[in-house]
């Protein structure tokens, strides 16, 4: 571009000649140049704005198009990229502590009918009744010829049944895929597993939800898709659970008991290795709850967790241990046992007369109610409540079962002195066998609080110390004497130093008072006493041992031999070698 000079000589000369100021020409030219510059700049700026505007328009149009495309399209799985964390839509498996399956999923089909598409409803109804004997032909026919357009016929059918229905060849009979819960071990650990059923149901799928036990308690965790393929590992051991159930069932039959429960717990970690309740049921085909009568008679009732029983003399060790812990008595203190002990209109008696006095140790070994009640009076109601509470006997058990929070121990409404006395030997307060096992574990493992759990623990959890390790050891020694010299002599399994306490409590009537001839027999034990590893609580409901001349109901003759057999059977499976110095004859090959 040729630049026009600010002072063109020709015009200046003309201006000078005319006597005008030539500077005016320069200024006029300068103004003209500035105006031209400004016009050019404005044009450039306008151009840039336009470009920018178009760019923004494109960008927003792109975002808008993408959004509408996303909103209008169907969702699709990312197909090309491998997903990092695996998402599994099925319910997690449940395994025992060694990874053996307790519950898994199986795909089957559900059968439904659409009567408008049916060709020959009469034939279909007849054939279906043949395949499924539990369906009635008339009822099916009524449904097929009625108003309804959609009918569920069977929730779960086997492949053979499916083939048979295919062979009917009616287009109105249709199948929907179903995921079902399978418990391959049948009734084993039924009360722990509980069972599963269908929640919301559609044609193409149905929700599997837990209905009881750990299946319901940990339902959301097991259904979490982010869990992937990781199964839920329980603390139970399949082999040991089977052995415990087998022995317990035999024992229940021999002792003519109505029911039985057993809890085997790791004394240090609180892991429940076995939890059995009889009679039991098959979780694959969970029976319906009783519509009348006592729910406690139903096989669904978990006696080990829900059964709140007065556990009798097994409580005595808590009173005595607290007396020792608070330095009110020592093992050799003499306690007055002359009976009966009167308090108002109440009288406390012993099963048999123990003479004038017993040492604290003998109060446990000979199971004196009067002696224990006297120690409890020294302790007083407040401290007794504090101690029993710290053993976890006042709150529902925190174990991972849906039934557990409902089983709150039954306590007297106002805790007077007479309650202190009766509860000291296990009457007037009810707790479950699981509570008992937890309290025994806490008291006897060196005094550290134990939280019961059904899940395998990778690391030990050490709770706060409740009693000193010295008190704990003394309690173990006294319980060992109960087995070696006292009421539980039948539990002396050679080589395993079993220590424990029997308890026989009269069953309370529903309308108040107690039955004379119906008892709950309990044996709470720990083995080996010198290096405690496991706690075992066995409870029998209304046992009678009829092998002797007179029928015997006390725990020493009923629960103790059953518990002894459980220990004899289970201890080797737990990997505990017997102490050979105690006179076990080992196998010779």
């Amino acid at each position, binding site marked *: 571009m040729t630049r026009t000079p600010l002072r063109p000589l020709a015009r200046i000369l003309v201006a000078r000649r005319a006597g005008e100021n030539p500077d005016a020409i320069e200024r006029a030219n300068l103004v003209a140049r500035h105006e031209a510059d400004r016009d050019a700049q404005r044009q450039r700026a306008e151009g840039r704005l336009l470009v920018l505007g178009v760019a923004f328009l494109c960008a927003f149009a792109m975002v808008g198009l993408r959004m509408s495309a996303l909103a209008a399209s169907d969702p699709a799985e990312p*197909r*090309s990229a491998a997903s990092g964390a695996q998402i599994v839509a099925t319910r997690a498996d449940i395994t025992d502590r060694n990874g*053996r*399956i307790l519950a*898994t*999923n*199986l*795909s089957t089909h559900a059968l439904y009918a659409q009567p408008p598409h049916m060709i020959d409803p009469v034939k279909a109804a007849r054939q279906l009744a043949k395949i499924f004997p539990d369906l009635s032909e008339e009822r099916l026919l009524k449904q097929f010829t009625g108003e309804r357009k959609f009918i569920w016929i069977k929730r779960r059918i086997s492949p053979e049944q499916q083939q048979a229905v295919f062979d009917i060849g009616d287009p109105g009979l249709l199948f929907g895929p179903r995921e079902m819960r*399978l418990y*391959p*071990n*049948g009734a*084993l650990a039924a009360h722990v597993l509980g069972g599963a059923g269908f929640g919301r149901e559609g044609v193409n799928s149905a929700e599997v939800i837990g209905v009881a036990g750990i299946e319901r308690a940990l339902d959301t965790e097991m259904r979490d898709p982010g869990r992937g393929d990781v199964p839920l590992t329980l603390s139970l051991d*399949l*082999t040991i659970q*089977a*052995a415990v159930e*087998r022995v317990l069932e035999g024992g229940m039959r021999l002792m003519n008991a109505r029911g039985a429960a057993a809890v085997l717990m790791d004394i240090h970690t609180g892991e429940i290795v076995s939890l059995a309740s009889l009679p039991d049921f098959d979780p694959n085909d969970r029976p319906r709850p009783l519509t009348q009568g006592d729910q406690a008679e139903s096989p669904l009732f978990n006696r080990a967790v829900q059964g709140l029983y007065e556990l009798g003399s097994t409580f005595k060790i808590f009173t005595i241990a607290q007396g020792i812990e608070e330095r009110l008595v020592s093992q050799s203190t003499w306690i007055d046992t002359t009976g009966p002990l009167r308090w108002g209109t109440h009288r406390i008696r012993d099963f048999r007369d123990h003479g004038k006095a017993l040492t604290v140790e003998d109060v446990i070994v000979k199971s004196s109610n009067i002696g224990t009640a006297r120690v409890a009076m020294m302790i007083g109601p407040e401290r007794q409540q504090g101690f029993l509470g710290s053993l976890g006997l006042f709150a529902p058990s925190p174990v991972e079962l849906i039934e557990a929070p409902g089983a709150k121990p039954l306590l007297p409404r106002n805790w007077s002195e007479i309650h202190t006395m009766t509860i000291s030997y296990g009457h007037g307060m009810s707790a479950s066998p699981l509570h008992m096992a937890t309290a025994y574990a806490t008291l006897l493992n060196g005094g550290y609080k134990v939280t019961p759990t059904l899940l395998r623990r990778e690391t030990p959890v050490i709770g706060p110390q409740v009693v000193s390790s010295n008190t704990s050891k003394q309690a173990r020694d006294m319980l060992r004497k109960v087995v070696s010299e006292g009421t539980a002599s039948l539990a002396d*399994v*050679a*080589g*395993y130093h079993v220590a424990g306490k029997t308890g026989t409590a009269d069953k309370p009537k529903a309308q108040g008072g107690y039955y004379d001839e119906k008892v709950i027999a309990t044996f709470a034990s720990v083995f080996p006493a010198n290096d405690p590893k496991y706690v075992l609580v066995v409870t029998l409901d209304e046992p009678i041992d009829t092998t002797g001349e007179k029928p015997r109901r006390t725990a020493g003759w009923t629960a103790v031999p059953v518990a002894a057999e459980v220990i*004899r*059977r289970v*201890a*080797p*499976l737990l990997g505990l*070698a*017997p102490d*050979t110095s105690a006179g*076990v*004859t*080992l*196998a*010779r*090959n």
Partner: protein
Amino acid sequence: MKSFFFLLTACVVMALAVWAYRQNYETQATLREVDALREDISQLRERAGVLRAEWAFLNRPERLADLADMNFDRLGLLPLRPEHFGQIEQIPFPVEQVQDVMLREEAE
């Protein structure tokens, strides 16, 4: 010169178009293969699940106990009891071999 560059560019564009076309179809084929493999995997998973369930069913303690009872003559399996634990001292020392070694040493 200008027309040469024009020709070259046209060739490159055509080559790229062919390449993109083939890539497109290859990708689609691969995606179909991935889908088929995923389907296979899920079916195999399901089968593995069924087999695991069957394995657990066949190995349920009740059945194993019954089998052990039925085949007691041949297998002689008993429940593990405390007496079955052995001790290291009970294993007989290989006496004869030691004697052999000693004899050999004497001979040498």
